[in-house]
Protein backbone atom coordinates (compact mmCIF):
# COMPACT_ATOMS: atom_id res chain seq x y z
CA UNK A 1 0.00 0.00 0.00
CA UNK A 2 1.40 3.35 -1.10
CA UNK A 3 0.25 5.30 1.96
CA UNK A 4 2.31 8.33 1.03
CA UNK A 5 0.31 8.59 -2.18
CA UNK A 6 -3.00 8.20 -0.35
CA UNK A 7 -1.93 10.97 2.01
CA UNK A 8 -0.85 13.18 -0.89
CA UNK A 9 -4.21 12.84 -2.65
CA UNK A 10 -6.13 13.32 0.60
CA UNK A 11 -4.22 16.45 1.59
CA UNK A 12 -4.43 17.92 -1.90
CA UNK A 13 -8.20 17.47 -1.95
CA UNK A 14 -8.67 18.81 1.57
CA UNK A 15 -6.57 21.84 0.63
CA UNK A 16 -9.09 22.59 -2.12
CA UNK A 17 -11.88 22.39 0.46
CA UNK A 18 -10.23 24.86 2.77
CA UNK A 19 -9.25 27.14 -0.08
CA UNK A 20 -12.92 27.40 -1.10
CA UNK A 21 -14.28 27.44 2.42
CA UNK A 22 -17.06 29.83 1.47
CA UNK A 23 -18.71 27.66 -1.13
CA UNK A 24 -17.86 24.26 0.28
CA UNK A 25 -18.93 25.01 3.81
CA UNK A 26 -21.02 28.11 4.28
CA UNK A 27 -23.53 27.41 1.52
CA UNK A 28 -24.79 24.05 2.85
CA UNK A 29 -24.98 25.48 6.37
CA UNK A 30 -26.83 28.50 5.04
CA UNK A 31 -29.40 26.49 3.13
CA UNK A 32 -29.97 24.18 6.08
CA UNK A 33 -30.57 27.17 8.34
CA UNK A 34 -33.21 28.29 5.84
CA UNK A 35 -34.89 24.87 6.00
CA UNK A 36 -35.02 25.18 9.78
CA UNK A 37 -36.64 28.58 9.57
CA UNK A 38 -39.17 27.64 6.88
CA UNK A 39 -40.07 24.05 7.77
CA UNK A 40 -39.09 23.91 11.41
CA UNK A 41 -40.35 27.23 12.73
CA UNK A 42 -42.83 28.68 10.24
CA UNK A 43 -44.66 25.60 8.93
CA UNK A 44 -43.58 23.28 11.73
CA UNK A 45 -45.34 25.34 14.38
CA UNK A 46 -48.64 24.33 12.77
CA UNK A 47 -47.74 20.66 12.65
CA UNK A 48 -48.40 18.32 15.52
CA UNK A 49 -45.74 16.05 16.92
CA UNK A 50 -44.52 13.31 14.57
CA UNK A 51 -43.88 9.97 16.25
CA UNK A 52 -43.76 11.71 19.60
CA UNK A 53 -41.16 14.30 18.52
CA UNK A 54 -41.72 17.96 17.72
CA UNK A 55 -41.67 18.53 13.96
CA UNK A 56 -38.71 20.89 14.21
CA UNK A 57 -36.64 18.19 15.91
CA UNK A 58 -38.05 15.46 13.66
CA UNK A 59 -36.59 17.00 10.50
CA UNK A 60 -33.08 17.42 11.94
CA UNK A 61 -31.82 13.94 10.98
CA UNK A 62 -33.47 14.28 7.56
CA UNK A 63 -31.86 17.65 6.94
CA UNK A 64 -28.44 16.40 7.95
CA UNK A 65 -28.86 13.38 5.66
CA UNK A 66 -30.04 15.60 2.82
CA UNK A 67 -26.94 17.78 3.08
CA UNK A 68 -24.52 14.96 3.69
CA UNK A 69 -25.78 12.91 0.75
CA UNK A 70 -25.77 15.75 -1.77
CA UNK A 71 -22.45 17.10 -0.50
CA UNK A 72 -20.77 13.70 -0.58
CA UNK A 73 -21.86 13.19 -4.14
CA UNK A 74 -20.91 16.63 -5.36
CA UNK A 75 -17.56 16.64 -3.54
CA UNK A 76 -16.49 13.22 -4.74
CA UNK A 77 -17.81 13.57 -8.28
CA UNK A 78 -16.16 16.94 -8.72
CA UNK A 79 -12.95 15.70 -7.08
CA UNK A 80 -12.38 13.04 -9.72
CA UNK A 81 -14.12 14.78 -12.63
CA UNK A 82 -11.99 17.92 -12.37
CA UNK A 83 -8.65 16.14 -13.05
CA UNK A 84 -10.32 14.43 -15.99
CA UNK A 85 -11.63 17.75 -17.26
CA UNK A 86 -8.37 19.68 -17.00
CA UNK A 87 -6.23 16.70 -17.95
CA UNK A 88 -4.21 16.28 -14.75
CA UNK A 89 -5.52 12.72 -14.48
CA UNK A 90 -2.52 11.67 -16.61
CA UNK A 91 -0.44 11.92 -13.47
CA UNK A 92 -2.73 9.70 -11.45
CA UNK A 93 -2.74 7.09 -14.20
CA UNK A 94 1.03 7.06 -14.57
CA UNK A 95 1.76 7.04 -10.83
CA UNK A 96 2.64 3.89 -8.89
CA UNK A 97 -0.77 3.74 -7.23
CA UNK A 98 -3.56 1.21 -7.55
CA UNK A 99 -7.27 1.89 -7.62
CA UNK A 100 -7.77 1.21 -3.92
CA UNK A 101 -5.31 3.96 -3.06
CA UNK A 102 -6.91 6.39 -5.50
CA UNK A 103 -10.36 5.65 -4.09
CA UNK A 104 -9.25 5.96 -0.47
CA UNK A 105 -7.62 9.31 -1.24
CA UNK A 106 -10.48 10.89 -3.18
CA UNK A 107 -13.46 9.26 -1.49
CA UNK A 108 -11.86 9.66 1.93
CA UNK A 109 -11.39 13.39 1.39
CA UNK A 110 -14.91 13.85 0.00
CA UNK A 111 -16.42 11.90 2.88
CA UNK A 112 -14.41 13.88 5.43
CA UNK A 113 -15.71 17.13 4.00
CA UNK A 114 -19.34 16.07 4.11
CA UNK A 115 -18.93 14.55 7.57
CA UNK A 116 -17.59 17.90 8.67
CA UNK A 117 -20.56 19.67 7.11
CA UNK A 118 -22.99 17.17 8.70
CA UNK A 119 -21.56 17.79 12.14
CA UNK A 120 -21.70 21.54 11.70
CA UNK A 121 -25.35 21.31 10.65
CA UNK A 122 -26.03 19.17 13.70
CA UNK A 123 -24.39 21.83 15.82
CA UNK A 124 -26.43 24.54 14.11
CA UNK A 125 -29.65 22.64 14.75
CA UNK A 126 -29.11 22.87 18.50
CA UNK A 127 -29.55 26.62 18.08
CA UNK A 128 -33.01 26.15 16.57
CA UNK A 129 -34.57 23.14 18.27
CA UNK A 130 -34.34 21.13 21.43
CA UNK A 131 -33.04 17.63 20.65
CA UNK A 132 -31.30 14.82 22.46
CA UNK A 133 -29.49 12.01 20.70
CA UNK A 134 -30.56 8.59 21.96
CA UNK A 135 -27.70 6.57 20.46
CA UNK A 136 -24.75 8.91 19.77
CA UNK A 137 -22.36 6.19 18.62
CA UNK A 138 -24.90 4.69 16.24
CA UNK A 139 -25.66 8.18 14.99
CA UNK A 140 -21.99 8.79 14.23
CA UNK A 141 -21.63 5.39 12.58
CA UNK A 142 -24.66 6.02 10.34
CA UNK A 143 -23.33 9.43 9.45
CA UNK A 144 -19.87 8.14 8.56
CA UNK A 145 -21.25 5.24 6.53
CA UNK A 146 -23.61 7.53 4.64
CA UNK A 147 -20.79 9.97 3.88
CA UNK A 148 -18.62 7.12 2.63
CA UNK A 149 -21.20 5.32 0.53
CA UNK A 150 -22.49 8.48 -1.14
CA UNK A 151 -18.95 9.66 -1.77
CA UNK A 152 -18.37 6.32 -3.49
CA UNK A 153 -21.47 6.94 -5.60
CA UNK A 154 -20.21 10.44 -6.36
CA UNK A 155 -16.85 9.02 -7.43
CA UNK A 156 -18.63 6.73 -9.90
CA UNK A 157 -20.66 9.66 -11.26
CA UNK A 158 -17.50 11.74 -11.62
CA UNK A 159 -15.84 9.02 -13.67
CA UNK A 160 -18.93 8.42 -15.75
CA UNK A 161 -19.62 12.09 -16.51
CA UNK A 162 -18.39 13.31 -19.88
CA UNK A 163 -19.26 16.96 -19.25
CA UNK A 164 -20.44 19.30 -16.51
CA UNK A 165 -24.09 18.78 -17.45
CA UNK A 166 -23.87 15.06 -16.85
CA UNK A 167 -22.03 15.78 -13.62
CA UNK A 168 -25.12 17.64 -12.38
CA UNK A 169 -27.64 15.31 -13.99
CA UNK A 170 -27.60 12.35 -11.63
CA UNK A 171 -27.56 14.39 -8.41
CA UNK A 172 -30.35 16.60 -9.73
CA UNK A 173 -32.58 14.05 -11.45
CA UNK A 174 -32.05 10.98 -9.30
CA UNK A 175 -30.53 11.72 -5.93
CA UNK A 176 -32.42 14.88 -4.96
CA UNK A 177 -35.86 13.31 -5.63
CA UNK A 178 -34.89 10.14 -3.80
CA UNK A 179 -33.70 12.10 -0.79
CA UNK A 180 -36.71 14.42 -0.71
CA UNK A 181 -39.11 11.49 -1.14
CA UNK A 182 -37.10 9.34 1.25
CA UNK A 183 -38.69 10.83 4.34
CA UNK A 184 -36.35 13.75 5.04
CA UNK A 185 -39.30 15.91 6.03
CA UNK A 186 -41.97 13.34 6.93
CA UNK A 187 -42.49 9.92 8.37
CA UNK A 188 -43.50 7.45 5.69
CA UNK A 189 -46.32 6.32 7.98
CA UNK A 190 -47.97 9.64 7.07
CA UNK A 191 -48.36 8.43 3.45
CA UNK A 192 -51.34 6.46 2.03
CA UNK A 193 -50.67 2.68 2.08
CA UNK A 194 -49.96 2.49 -1.68
CA UNK A 195 -47.26 5.16 -1.54
CA UNK A 196 -45.81 3.61 1.57
CA UNK A 197 -45.16 0.46 -0.45
CA UNK A 198 -43.67 2.45 -3.35
CA UNK A 199 -41.43 4.33 -0.93
CA UNK A 200 -39.92 1.09 0.29
CA UNK A 201 -38.18 0.78 -3.09
CA UNK A 202 -36.34 4.00 -2.36
CA UNK A 203 -32.99 3.04 -0.83
CA UNK A 204 -32.64 6.42 0.86
CA UNK A 205 -35.65 5.62 3.10
CA UNK A 206 -33.59 3.02 4.95
CA UNK A 207 -30.70 5.39 5.55
CA UNK A 208 -32.83 8.26 6.82
CA UNK A 209 -34.93 5.92 8.94
CA UNK A 210 -31.88 4.36 10.54
CA UNK A 211 -30.32 7.74 11.16
CA UNK A 212 -33.53 9.03 12.72
CA UNK A 213 -33.66 5.95 14.94
CA UNK A 214 -30.24 6.88 16.35
CA UNK A 215 -31.74 10.21 17.43
CA UNK A 216 -35.20 9.30 18.69
CA UNK A 217 -35.21 5.52 19.07
CA UNK A 218 -38.13 5.18 16.64
CA UNK A 219 -37.93 4.28 12.95
CA UNK A 220 -40.01 3.67 9.84
CA UNK A 221 -38.19 0.42 9.13
CA UNK A 222 -36.33 -1.97 11.43
CA UNK A 223 -32.81 -0.80 12.29
CA UNK A 224 -31.33 -4.10 11.13
CA UNK A 225 -32.85 -3.58 7.70
CA UNK A 226 -31.39 -0.08 7.61
CA UNK A 227 -27.93 -1.39 8.42
CA UNK A 228 -28.23 -4.08 5.80
CA UNK A 229 -29.35 -1.51 3.21
CA UNK A 230 -26.42 0.80 3.79
CA UNK A 231 -24.00 -2.13 3.81
CA UNK A 232 -25.45 -3.41 0.54
CA UNK A 233 -25.30 0.03 -1.06
CA UNK A 234 -21.66 0.51 -0.05
CA UNK A 235 -20.71 -2.93 -1.37
CA UNK A 236 -22.48 -2.23 -4.65
CA UNK A 237 -20.59 1.03 -5.14
CA UNK A 238 -17.29 -0.66 -4.31
CA UNK A 239 -18.01 -3.41 -6.83
CA UNK A 240 -18.75 -0.88 -9.57
CA UNK A 241 -15.55 1.03 -8.80
CA UNK A 242 -13.55 -2.19 -8.82
CA UNK A 243 -14.98 -2.95 -12.26
CA UNK A 244 -14.23 0.58 -13.49
CA UNK A 245 -10.56 0.29 -12.63
CA UNK A 246 -10.27 -3.26 -13.84
CA UNK A 247 -11.57 -2.35 -17.27
CA UNK A 248 -10.27 1.22 -17.34
CA UNK A 249 -13.79 2.34 -18.28
CA UNK A 250 -13.85 6.07 -19.09
CA UNK A 251 -10.34 6.54 -17.70
CA UNK A 252 -7.81 4.51 -19.66
CA UNK A 253 -7.93 4.32 -23.42
Amino acid at each position, binding site marked *: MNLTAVGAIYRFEMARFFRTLMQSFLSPVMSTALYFVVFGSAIGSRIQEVEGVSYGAFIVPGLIMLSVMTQSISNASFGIYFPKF*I*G*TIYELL*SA*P*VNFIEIVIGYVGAAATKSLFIGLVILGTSFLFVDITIAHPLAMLAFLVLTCLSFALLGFIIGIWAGNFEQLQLVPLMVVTPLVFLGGSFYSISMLPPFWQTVTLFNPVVYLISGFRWSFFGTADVAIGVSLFAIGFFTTLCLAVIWWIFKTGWRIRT
Partner: protein
Amino acid sequence: MPSIVSVKDVRKVYDSGHEALSGVDLEIQEGEVLALLGPNGAGKTTLISTICGITTKTNGTITVGGHDTVTDFRAARNLIGLVPQEINLEPFEQVINTVRFSRGLFGKRSNAAYVDEVLKTLSLDDKATAQIKELSGGMKRRVLIAKALSHEPRVLFLDEPTAGVDVELRKDMWETVAQLKAQGVTIILTTHYIEEAEAIADRIAVINKGKILLVEEKAKLMARMGQKELRIELAEPLQALPAGFEDVDLSLSDDGGTLIYTYDTAGERTGITSLLTDLQKAGIVLKDLQTRQSSLEDIFVGLVHKEDEA
Protein backbone atom coordinates in the same frame (compact mmCIF):
# COMPACT_ATOMS: atom_id res chain seq x y z
CA MET B 1 24.84 -2.31 -21.41
CA PRO B 2 21.31 -3.50 -20.57
CA SER B 3 18.58 -1.20 -21.74
CA ILE B 4 16.56 0.74 -19.18
CA VAL B 5 13.38 0.69 -21.23
CA SER B 6 12.59 -2.32 -23.33
CA VAL B 7 9.58 -2.42 -25.65
CA LYS B 8 8.91 -5.75 -27.33
CA ASP B 9 6.38 -6.29 -30.09
CA VAL B 10 3.86 -3.84 -28.65
CA ARG B 11 0.60 -3.39 -30.49
CA LYS B 12 -2.17 -0.98 -29.64
CA VAL B 13 -5.55 -1.16 -31.29
CA TYR B 14 -8.04 1.44 -30.05
CA ASP B 15 -11.69 0.57 -29.54
CA SER B 16 -12.43 2.42 -32.77
CA GLY B 17 -10.36 -0.22 -34.57
CA HIS B 18 -7.55 2.21 -35.31
CA GLU B 19 -4.17 0.51 -34.97
CA ALA B 20 -1.92 3.15 -33.40
CA LEU B 21 1.05 0.85 -32.77
CA SER B 22 1.70 -2.17 -34.92
CA GLY B 23 4.46 -4.24 -33.39
CA VAL B 24 6.90 -1.74 -31.90
CA ASP B 25 10.32 -2.91 -30.72
CA LEU B 26 12.54 -0.38 -29.02
CA GLU B 27 15.48 -0.61 -26.63
CA ILE B 28 16.45 2.55 -24.78
CA GLN B 29 19.91 2.71 -23.22
CA GLU B 30 20.49 4.17 -19.79
CA GLY B 31 21.72 7.75 -19.87
CA GLU B 32 20.97 8.49 -23.50
CA VAL B 33 18.76 11.09 -25.10
CA LEU B 34 16.52 9.40 -27.63
CA ALA B 35 14.40 11.43 -29.99
CA LEU B 36 11.27 9.81 -31.29
CA LEU B 37 10.68 11.50 -34.56
CA GLY B 38 7.58 11.19 -36.64
CA PRO B 39 4.79 13.08 -38.36
CA ASN B 40 1.52 13.87 -36.59
CA GLY B 41 -0.49 10.75 -35.86
CA ALA B 42 2.53 8.46 -36.22
CA GLY B 43 2.00 6.91 -32.79
CA LYS B 44 4.56 8.86 -30.75
CA THR B 45 2.23 9.87 -27.95
CA THR B 46 0.51 6.48 -27.92
CA LEU B 47 3.87 4.78 -27.48
CA ILE B 48 4.82 7.03 -24.56
CA SER B 49 1.37 6.73 -22.97
CA THR B 50 1.57 2.97 -23.25
CA ILE B 51 4.97 2.81 -21.57
CA CYS B 52 3.77 5.12 -18.77
CA GLY B 53 0.53 3.25 -18.15
CA ILE B 54 -2.00 5.81 -19.35
CA THR B 55 -2.95 3.66 -22.31
CA THR B 56 -3.31 -0.10 -22.11
CA LYS B 57 -1.52 -2.13 -24.77
CA THR B 58 -3.26 -4.74 -26.86
CA ASN B 59 -0.26 -7.08 -26.68
CA GLY B 60 3.49 -7.17 -26.28
CA THR B 61 5.67 -6.52 -23.23
CA ILE B 62 7.31 -3.43 -21.81
CA THR B 63 9.86 -3.35 -19.03
CA VAL B 64 11.38 -0.35 -17.30
CA GLY B 65 14.53 -1.00 -15.30
CA GLY B 66 13.74 -4.69 -15.70
CA HIS B 67 10.25 -4.34 -14.18
CA ASP B 68 7.22 -5.28 -16.24
CA THR B 69 4.93 -2.25 -16.59
CA VAL B 70 1.82 -4.33 -15.91
CA THR B 71 2.71 -7.06 -13.42
CA ASP B 72 5.24 -4.93 -11.54
CA PHE B 73 3.80 -1.52 -12.31
CA ARG B 74 4.82 0.13 -9.06
CA ALA B 75 8.52 -0.55 -9.46
CA ALA B 76 8.37 0.35 -13.16
CA ARG B 77 6.47 3.61 -12.70
CA ASN B 78 8.67 4.70 -9.80
CA LEU B 79 11.46 5.10 -12.32
CA ILE B 80 9.45 7.17 -14.77
CA GLY B 81 8.73 10.87 -15.02
CA LEU B 82 6.28 12.01 -17.67
CA VAL B 83 5.86 15.47 -19.14
CA PRO B 84 2.70 15.46 -21.23
CA GLN B 85 2.18 17.35 -24.44
CA GLU B 86 -0.77 19.40 -23.21
CA ILE B 87 -0.32 21.84 -20.35
CA ASN B 88 -2.41 19.98 -17.80
CA LEU B 89 -2.26 21.85 -14.51
CA GLU B 90 -4.68 22.95 -11.82
CA PRO B 91 -4.95 26.70 -12.39
CA PHE B 92 -5.56 27.67 -8.77
CA GLU B 93 -2.79 25.63 -7.19
CA GLN B 94 0.52 27.01 -6.05
CA VAL B 95 3.55 25.80 -7.97
CA ILE B 96 5.21 24.33 -4.91
CA ASN B 97 2.08 22.46 -3.81
CA THR B 98 1.50 20.77 -7.12
CA VAL B 99 5.16 19.70 -7.25
CA ARG B 100 4.96 18.35 -3.69
CA PHE B 101 1.75 16.54 -4.59
CA SER B 102 3.49 14.80 -7.48
CA ARG B 103 6.30 13.68 -5.22
CA GLY B 104 3.85 12.29 -2.68
CA LEU B 105 1.82 10.58 -5.36
CA PHE B 106 4.90 8.63 -6.35
CA GLY B 107 5.33 7.51 -2.77
CA LYS B 108 8.38 9.61 -1.97
CA ARG B 109 8.72 11.23 1.43
CA SER B 110 8.65 14.99 1.34
CA ASN B 111 12.07 16.51 0.80
CA ALA B 112 11.99 20.29 0.74
CA ALA B 113 15.65 20.62 -0.22
CA TYR B 114 15.26 18.41 -3.28
CA VAL B 115 12.06 20.12 -4.42
CA ASP B 116 13.74 23.52 -4.05
CA GLU B 117 16.64 22.29 -6.12
CA VAL B 118 14.34 21.08 -8.90
CA LEU B 119 12.58 24.44 -8.96
CA LYS B 120 15.93 26.17 -9.09
CA THR B 121 17.18 24.04 -11.98
CA LEU B 122 14.08 25.06 -13.91
CA SER B 123 14.34 28.74 -12.88
CA LEU B 124 11.06 28.44 -11.02
CA ASP B 125 12.41 29.18 -7.55
CA ASP B 126 11.01 32.71 -7.46
CA LYS B 127 7.60 31.41 -8.62
CA ALA B 128 7.24 28.72 -5.95
CA THR B 129 4.26 30.30 -4.23
CA ALA B 130 2.70 31.75 -7.36
CA GLN B 131 -0.62 30.39 -8.57
CA ILE B 132 -0.25 28.43 -11.77
CA LYS B 133 -2.74 30.59 -13.65
CA GLU B 134 -0.41 33.56 -13.18
CA LEU B 135 2.42 31.88 -15.09
CA SER B 136 3.31 32.22 -18.75
CA GLY B 137 3.00 29.24 -21.09
CA GLY B 138 6.72 28.52 -20.97
CA MET B 139 6.73 28.65 -17.17
CA LYS B 140 3.79 26.25 -17.02
CA ARG B 141 5.70 23.80 -19.15
CA ARG B 142 8.56 24.00 -16.69
CA VAL B 143 6.16 23.30 -13.85
CA LEU B 144 5.19 20.12 -15.71
CA ILE B 145 8.85 19.17 -15.91
CA ALA B 146 9.32 19.98 -12.22
CA LYS B 147 6.39 17.70 -11.37
CA ALA B 148 7.87 14.93 -13.49
CA LEU B 149 11.25 15.32 -11.79
CA SER B 150 9.82 15.67 -8.29
CA HIS B 151 10.14 11.98 -7.48
CA GLU B 152 13.69 11.59 -8.79
CA PRO B 153 12.94 9.47 -11.86
CA ARG B 154 15.65 7.72 -13.84
CA VAL B 155 13.77 7.97 -17.11
CA LEU B 156 12.09 11.13 -18.29
CA PHE B 157 9.56 11.20 -21.10
CA LEU B 158 9.03 14.54 -22.77
CA ASP B 159 6.10 14.55 -25.14
CA GLU B 160 6.60 17.39 -27.61
CA PRO B 161 8.37 19.58 -25.05
CA THR B 162 8.73 22.50 -27.41
CA ALA B 163 5.49 22.38 -29.38
CA GLY B 164 4.21 25.92 -29.74
CA VAL B 165 7.11 27.41 -27.82
CA ASP B 166 9.12 30.36 -29.10
CA VAL B 167 12.70 30.01 -30.29
CA GLU B 168 14.34 31.35 -27.16
CA LEU B 169 12.36 29.10 -24.87
CA ARG B 170 13.11 26.15 -27.12
CA LYS B 171 16.83 26.77 -26.70
CA ASP B 172 16.27 26.97 -22.92
CA MET B 173 14.49 23.66 -23.01
CA TRP B 174 17.35 22.06 -24.92
CA GLU B 175 19.73 23.33 -22.28
CA THR B 176 17.56 21.83 -19.57
CA VAL B 177 17.63 18.50 -21.37
CA ALA B 178 21.42 18.65 -21.59
CA GLN B 179 21.61 19.45 -17.87
CA LEU B 180 19.38 16.52 -16.96
CA LYS B 181 21.37 14.20 -19.18
CA ALA B 182 24.51 15.31 -17.36
CA GLN B 183 22.81 14.27 -14.13
CA GLY B 184 22.38 10.80 -15.57
CA VAL B 185 18.67 10.94 -16.43
CA THR B 186 17.65 8.96 -19.49
CA ILE B 187 15.50 11.12 -21.72
CA ILE B 188 13.03 10.14 -24.38
CA LEU B 189 11.45 12.98 -26.24
CA THR B 190 9.00 13.04 -29.06
CA THR B 191 9.14 15.78 -31.59
CA HIS B 192 8.27 16.58 -35.12
CA TYR B 193 10.89 19.28 -35.26
CA ILE B 194 13.83 17.71 -36.99
CA GLU B 195 16.22 20.39 -35.83
CA GLU B 196 15.31 19.53 -32.25
CA ALA B 197 16.29 15.90 -32.71
CA GLU B 198 19.41 17.02 -34.52
CA ALA B 199 20.34 19.41 -31.71
CA ILE B 200 19.88 17.31 -28.60
CA ALA B 201 19.49 13.61 -29.33
CA ASP B 202 22.13 10.89 -29.10
CA ARG B 203 19.98 8.48 -31.02
CA ILE B 204 17.03 8.95 -33.24
CA ALA B 205 14.09 6.64 -33.77
CA VAL B 206 11.83 7.36 -36.69
CA ILE B 207 8.24 6.25 -36.27
CA ASN B 208 5.47 6.35 -38.83
CA LYS B 209 2.08 4.68 -38.94
CA GLY B 210 2.71 2.85 -35.67
CA LYS B 211 5.98 1.30 -36.79
CA ILE B 212 9.55 2.13 -35.90
CA LEU B 213 11.27 2.59 -39.24
CA LEU B 214 14.75 2.86 -37.83
CA VAL B 215 16.74 3.53 -34.67
CA GLU B 216 20.23 4.80 -35.13
CA GLU B 217 22.86 6.98 -33.58
CA LYS B 218 22.36 10.46 -34.88
CA ALA B 219 25.88 10.87 -36.25
CA LYS B 220 25.88 7.46 -37.90
CA LEU B 221 22.45 8.00 -39.32
CA MET B 222 23.47 11.22 -40.91
CA ALA B 223 26.72 9.75 -42.20
CA ARG B 224 25.13 6.54 -43.44
CA MET B 225 22.24 8.05 -45.21
CA GLY B 226 23.62 11.47 -45.78
CA GLN B 227 24.43 12.59 -49.24
CA LYS B 228 26.73 15.41 -49.89
CA GLU B 229 26.50 18.08 -52.45
CA LEU B 230 29.48 19.79 -54.06
CA ARG B 231 28.59 23.15 -55.51
CA ILE B 232 31.06 24.44 -58.03
CA GLU B 233 30.76 28.12 -58.84
CA LEU B 234 32.00 28.91 -62.29
CA ALA B 235 33.96 31.93 -63.47
CA GLU B 236 31.82 32.05 -66.65
CA PRO B 237 28.20 30.82 -66.80
CA LEU B 238 27.47 27.85 -69.06
CA GLN B 239 24.52 27.42 -71.42
CA ALA B 240 24.34 23.67 -70.95
CA LEU B 241 26.16 20.81 -69.26
CA PRO B 242 29.52 20.33 -70.98
CA ALA B 243 29.79 17.25 -73.19
CA GLY B 244 31.31 14.10 -71.66
CA PHE B 245 29.70 14.55 -68.23
CA GLU B 246 26.42 12.78 -68.98
CA ASP B 247 27.35 9.72 -66.89
CA VAL B 248 28.19 11.76 -63.80
CA ASP B 249 25.61 12.92 -61.21
CA LEU B 250 26.09 16.49 -62.23
CA SER B 251 23.56 19.21 -62.86
CA LEU B 252 23.65 22.85 -63.82
CA SER B 253 21.87 25.57 -61.85
CA ASP B 254 19.20 27.58 -63.65
CA ASP B 255 21.39 30.61 -64.08
CA GLY B 256 24.18 28.43 -65.44
CA GLY B 257 26.65 29.81 -62.93
CA THR B 258 26.92 26.74 -60.66
CA LEU B 259 27.51 23.05 -61.24
CA ILE B 260 26.04 20.77 -58.58
CA TYR B 261 27.60 17.38 -58.00
CA THR B 262 25.89 14.92 -55.65
CA TYR B 263 27.84 12.07 -54.06
CA ASP B 264 27.59 9.55 -51.29
CA THR B 265 30.02 9.99 -48.41
CA ALA B 266 29.76 6.29 -47.60
CA GLY B 267 30.96 5.31 -51.09
CA GLU B 268 34.56 4.13 -51.60
CA ARG B 269 35.24 6.83 -54.07
CA THR B 270 33.51 10.14 -54.11
CA GLY B 271 34.65 10.86 -57.65
CA ILE B 272 35.58 14.40 -56.77
CA THR B 273 39.17 14.26 -57.94
CA SER B 274 38.33 12.86 -61.36
CA LEU B 275 35.45 15.30 -61.75
CA LEU B 276 37.67 18.28 -61.06
CA THR B 277 40.40 16.95 -63.34
CA ASP B 278 37.85 16.41 -66.14
CA LEU B 279 36.44 19.91 -65.67
CA GLN B 280 39.91 21.35 -65.96
CA LYS B 281 40.54 19.32 -69.12
CA ALA B 282 37.28 20.66 -70.57
CA GLY B 283 38.64 24.14 -70.00
CA ILE B 284 36.12 25.22 -67.37
CA VAL B 285 37.42 27.78 -64.89
CA LEU B 286 36.26 27.49 -61.29
CA LYS B 287 35.58 30.40 -58.98
CA ASP B 288 34.63 28.70 -55.69
CA LEU B 289 33.74 25.34 -54.12
CA GLN B 290 31.20 24.51 -51.40
CA THR B 291 30.04 21.25 -49.88
CA ARG B 292 26.77 20.71 -48.04
CA GLN B 293 25.62 17.65 -46.08
CA SER B 294 21.99 16.75 -46.41
CA SER B 295 20.11 17.36 -43.16
CA LEU B 296 18.18 14.96 -41.03
CA GLU B 297 15.09 16.47 -42.54
CA ASP B 298 16.02 15.20 -46.00
CA ILE B 299 16.62 11.75 -44.55
CA PHE B 300 13.39 11.83 -42.63
CA VAL B 301 11.26 12.97 -45.51
CA GLY B 302 12.91 10.32 -47.68
CA LEU B 303 12.15 7.58 -45.16
CA VAL B 304 8.58 8.53 -44.51
CA HIS B 305 7.84 8.92 -48.20
CA LYS B 306 9.33 5.57 -49.00
CA GLU B 307 7.11 4.06 -46.30
CA ASP B 308 4.04 5.87 -47.59
CA GLU B 309 4.63 4.63 -51.11
CA ALA B 310 5.18 1.06 -50.01
